């Protein structure tokens, strides 16, 4: 069993709080729909003066290589690594756009021993890249635990529903 992450706790707290009121819920539903509809505007955090990005250069071997399935961030990815498809580990290749809606994993960086919350964003707009296929399922859950499911086609709010590859973006330390 993986330890409960801050993400779990926040989700649970929010869920409990929101469950109290149906009227609030439908307002939130509308908000959610609006957010989802607002394509192009990434819903995920924009840079907040990132001081301490984990330095992959310190890692030996596959765990430090973004084109490797063993790359530390890829612990719950399922798809093709964008670093092999004209993008990088955190940027989509030309011909695609990044879905703002994602699934989430918690991966340990061997360089500093910290667990990080990783957002897996699909790059959408072209058929399957078919390079560097990678399926890892650390903490991955079936489709009824939606935001921990890596099987879903996560191209939402993008012009295209066709997933080409996936990136692994560090959202924060999971302590």
């Amino acid at each position, binding site marked *: 069993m993986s330890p409960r992450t801050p993400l779990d706790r926040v989700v649970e707290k929010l869920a409990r709080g929101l469950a109290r009121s149906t009227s609030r819920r439908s307002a939130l539903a509308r908000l959610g729909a609006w957010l989802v509809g607002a394509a192009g505007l990434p819903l995920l955090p924009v840079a907040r003066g990132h001081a301490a990005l984990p330095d992959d250069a310190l890692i030996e071997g596959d765990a430090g290589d973004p084109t490797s399935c063993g790359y530390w961030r890829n612990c719950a990815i399922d798809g093709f690594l964008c670093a092999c498809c004209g993008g990088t580990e955190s940027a989509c290749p030309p011909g695609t756009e990044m879905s703002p*809606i994602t699934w989430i994993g918690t991966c340990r960086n061997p360089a500093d021993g910290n667990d990080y919350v990783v957002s897996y964003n699909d790059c959408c707009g*072209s058929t399957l890249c078919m390079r560097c296929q990678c*399926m890892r399922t650390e903490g991955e*859950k079936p*489709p009824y635990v939606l935001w921990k499911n890596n099987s*879903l*086609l996560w191209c939402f709010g993008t012009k295209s529903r*066709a997933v*080409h590859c996936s990136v692994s973006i560090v959202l924060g330390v999971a302590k």
Partner: protein
Amino acid sequence: MTRRLARLPLALLVAALTVVQAPPARAQDDVAEPVGKVLTLPAKPAPHWFWLSDVLLHRTALYDGDSGKLLGTITAGSVGVGFVVWPLFSLDHREIYIPESYFSRGVRGDRTDVVTVYDATTLMPAAEIPIPPKRAEYFPGVAPNAISDDGRFVGVFNVTPAQSLTIVDVRERRFTTEIQTPGCSLVYPAGPRRFFMLCADGAALVVTLDETGQQQSAERTRPFFDAEKDPLFEAAGRHDDGWLFASFEGNVHPLDVSGEEPRFGETWSLFSDAERGAGWRIGGAQPVALHAKTGRLYLLVHEGAKDSHKQAGSAIWVYDVATRNRVAEIPVNNPLSSFVRGQMRAGRERLRDRMLVRLLDAVLPNTGAEAILVTQDAQPVLVVMSMMPPAVTVYDAQSGDILREVSEPGLAGSVLVAP
């Protein structure tokens, strides 16, 4: 057009048509075969037929488990999208229903979702029912849509990413309603007018319809599994009274849907402590199958670490649900060996074929299988699919003997479906 164009005219085309239309009549020429012939399928499916969907070929293909032959295909979905191709069948087997999504420009453009009605003998579209453009796409898609036990209503699981369930009246050929199902995914049939979904809190959401396909109720059960600590596999076994689910940690969760309210049976463990210690786990894309009449539960298993729930299986373990005893262990046929022999068009019957089987099985690593299916007749077959390389093997489900291999079973198999 200038005069020069006249030199070699459009006549070449017309001539090509004309010539084959009316060749000079001569005695020895009376050998022409009819043109335009298209085969149709018998009105009733044979007991060992199965469908295999393919995400790269965007199709589902019908195979005969008794011959290993491909009988026909239905292509569904748009380029780059269309991971889920899960056909549903009318009770009389005259129609096949497939929820599909289309885009006006291949990977982009305007989206149209429909349930297409196919004639089950011609596999050609007979009707199309528009639905809200919200269908979930995921891999491989074992419970993405379902048909009510009376064959009248189809439920389609949506993610936008808001979760909901679309209801379609296939008899009246119309969309009836969309039911919001926050926190709940997938869809399983559970009676003539009832479906259920599974939820992130471990509950089931039971959706009951009225005679017109409108929501009569949508009630959430108490949580009956822990979605975080020991989630249920999407693939499950259906029997007359309900469903058997298996969990990541190897526990069986019976769900009885025969009564007014769903009832949860006693959970039981598939693995002994020793087996757990050795790391035996269920895994794959579609690792659970049930032969309902005999109560035989088939599970694709492997030795692996925690979170290896998608790892390919090395064996199929068979349980008697009544006694909870394991009654058989069937090793998974080597897919690489099967693939290579399929390319060589070698069978398994003759002596030299059997020697080749032994040689290749010994030399090539066995990369395991991802999906299993059991037919529901009295002499059932077990169909086992490996994704990479693509391989399909048909076993006697009772003896575990390999009956045959299906050669060249597509490019990227996803799910096995029984008609």
